[in-house]
């Protein structure tokens, strides 16, 4: 299906977060995005392990993701919105 393919390709080039599923060679990892697997270069990020998340751009990992940072930010938003809801109630 054309659309599906486009979408996956877009995801691969535009830096969508991807999970490492396997590290078969030192410099290469297999990642999975939306059920599609692809080999990416690790030359710019150093060692990774299965389960790590990477920002992938045009076939290479450009950075490892610190999911805790995103969690923390989401928690702040949750607090803000909960506080507001409590005020309204």
């Amino acid at each position, binding site marked *: 299906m054309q659309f599906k393919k486009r*979408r996956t*390709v*877009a*995801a*691969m*080039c*535009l*830096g969508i*977060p991807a999970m490492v599923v396997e590290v078969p060679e030192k410099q290469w990892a297999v990642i999975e995005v939306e059920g599609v697997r692809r080999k990416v*270069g690790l*030359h*710019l*990020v*150093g060692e990774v392990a299965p389960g790590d*998340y990477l*920002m992938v*751009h*045009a*076939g*290479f990992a*450009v*950075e490892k*993701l*610190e*999911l*805790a*940072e*995103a*969690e923390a*930010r*989401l928690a702040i*938003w949750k607090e*803000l*919105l909960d506080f507001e809801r409590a005020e309204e109630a």
Partner: protein
Amino acid sequence: MLKRLNDPQLGREMIRKVRERAARLTERLGRAVTLMEVCGTHTMAVSGTGLRGLLSGLVELRSGPGCPVCVTPARDIEQIIAFARLSGVTVATFGDMVRVPGAQSSLERERAGGARVQIVYSPADALQLARDNPRWEVIFIGVGFETTAPLAAVSIKQAAELGLTNFSIYSVHKLVPPVMGALLGAGDLKVDGFILPGHVCAVTGSRAFAFIGEEYGIPAVVAGFTPVDILDALYVLLDLIQAGDHRVVNGYRWVVRDDGNLKAQRAITDCFYTGDAAWRGFGVVEGSGLFIRDQYAQYDATQKFAGAGPASVAGPGLATERVGKSTTTGGFGTGDFLEPRGCRCGELLRGLITPPDCALFGGKCTPASPAGPCMVSSEGACAAYYRYVTNQPRLPGVVNANSGAAGSGAGCRKVEL
């Protein structure tokens, strides 16, 4: 966790907060807040999520010079076409480059005429193409910013390790901080704040953009690309503006480090040196281009195929040549670039107009038949506007709706490309 960054429910609530904050600021300023989204991927995202429409009247979003295909000047396009015409050469490039119109032709037309033009998704794919086809000369068109340049650098190093002799790169890689300096130095851009490109900053670090706040007194926030990322960054940016705080804030900490990715920076400096480069719409910007070091000269298409310039502008070292007016002398001439007639991509890339201001928009220039690169590239502002704004008469209704909630949710879900 990653799903929550695309959560429509959260997006809806966030957009309400962003609108509240923007409304307060709009009231104080007596006009809409003007922000520039520097990056083409943000241009796509703010249009695709419907955010641009949902904030209209409160926040005016301008596109900037962050679409790599769009800022590649006409002259480089002619050079790339000239490469494709060489016998035995295969031009490997990202898809968007193929349709960018030159003065007489495009890679697409050359391909229809028999030239070998191959679309790749990574410089690694181009390298593989050269390995698999030792009798081809593969030229990879290295277009992109700090995010793409280290990938090309890795490929050059790999080619050297493998001793490949049929692979080269035409580097039109560009650096974002210098063009931001040129943009701000020109003095004709009026914006209240910048949304900085998350992926570029992943490499450069957020600190590379600190000068925007320090020298020009304009706040900026590094932003990611999911709806939640963007709304979060907008919220922070509006707060900075309200407070008169001119800092550059890293709003994408889960990907971007303040100092960036040192390995990637080293890869760039190992393979490239910085020099003056021409940008569409800007002319030559000092120190904004990346050119392959002599050490890797055999992988530099400019040197390897010296003399294969377009007929009108012969000679090697094309990209480094000083054409158009330098930004240091003020003004942005187009020099001897052959810009498409009537196309206003240049002003667009400098944040001076929005796509509908161009007389060709939607008429003589559409994605099916583009007059300029901004209508070709998926990251181009004209293409983004055309796809999402002109075809969505529902947007004004949504904007006027008091809650804005129903519409924003639908919009947010749409970002899954």
